[in-house]
């Protein structure tokens, strides 16, 4: 593809575009299936078996099992879909977002209460912080 992707140089950020969507299709559709209580119960009872019903890559399955959301996103997951895993686990959106930053839950919450993460130093990859 030779379309411009100007968003590739934003640090710590993955834009969910057509390429990512293609890669993450089954991962995201798996997440979507967790909107049904019945499926949530089956997933909780045996995560691996439930995941094996989906034509996802082994990497994607491992990322889900490890609840490694950054890895899920790198493999085509989208945060609004991945949020269904969080809902299944009883996690809030703030807990999920925080889990991707390398901060503890409390550190993240405190950062948000203090005005959030500054854009300064966070606009371009390699920019001096």
């Amino acid at each position, binding site marked *: 593809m030779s379309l411009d992707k*100007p*968003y590739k140089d*934003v*640090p*710590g*950020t*993955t*834009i*969910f*575009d*057509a390429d990512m*969507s293609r890669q993450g*299709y089954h991962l*995201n*559709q798996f*997440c*979507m299936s*967790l*909107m049904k209580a019945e499926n*949530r119960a089956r997933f909780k009872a045996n995560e691996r078996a439930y995941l094996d019903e989906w034509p996802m890559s082994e990497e994607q399955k491992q990322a889900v099992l490890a609840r490694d*959301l*950054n890895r899920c*996103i790198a493999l085509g997951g*989208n*945060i*609004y*879909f991945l*949020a*269904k895993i*969080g*809902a*299944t686990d009883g996690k*809030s*959106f*703030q807990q*999920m*977002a*925080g889990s*991707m*930053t*390398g901060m503890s839950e409390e550190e*993240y919450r405190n*950062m*948000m*209460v203090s*005005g*959030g*993460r*500054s*854009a300064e130093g*966070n*606009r*371009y990859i390699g920019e001096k912080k």
Partner: protein
Amino acid sequence: MARITASVYTSHVPAVGAALDLGKTAEPYWQPVFKGYEFSKQWLKDQKPDVIFLVYNDHANAFSLDIIPTFAIGTAPEFAVADEGWGPRPVPKVIGHPKLAGHIAQSVIQDDFDLTIVNKMDVDHGLTVPMSLMCGQPQAWPCPVIPFAVNVVQYPVPSGRRCYMLGKAIRKAIESYDEPLNVQIWGTGGMSHQLQGPRAGLINKEFDTAFLDRLIADPEGLSAMPHIDYVREAGSEGIELVMWLIARGAMSDVNGGKPPTVRHRFYHVPASNTAVGHLILENN
């Protein structure tokens, strides 16, 4: 003829809905957020709109990756509240306005906007949280709502310019409708926030403040801002702000009329991961 009397802009943070539904509005963390909407609730009661045209985005609830409409207009008589994974919010179902919605679809498609017409759609927090913020917790919403869902999940989302021009086409459609309806148009989502990756938690107050300033005074110029500026400055989910331009494009001043009155303006950080912004513009 129907006319657009006002536009409302607001964030639609899901945690705000949860705080309301769980009775936490008086907690110190949430109190300032809800205080920002006290004026708005009274204002809406006084305004008595007949229909609200509500621009929002679905968050992988009504639409999976199986079908992703860029612009979807809800023409059904009613819309159920989505179960987003923890049960549907305990709020009233949404009553639509099929006749006006069908009229708008017909007019706007003839103006070369390639809408998807939807007759079956659950509405998620993107729509219900603004309703809750503006109406509180009534037994039924005060008037019919036309849900208008914009894709901001899978890139490319529509450009700010496209959204702004769409607002103008929606205005033309509403103003050509025969019944004398008092219609409000709401733009929701934003403000700065990022929900993913190591940069999650980004908040940019300077950007948000400038966005509000320009939305009021220079919407045409603002509509030219490219996606990358939203992503870089306002976070990957800050891109939701393009939806505010649809509502703004439908106002009188950018269609040959008088400047609007800024009836209310509010900004607060944080609500969960997000900066909350809110604005009410009245046509004159």
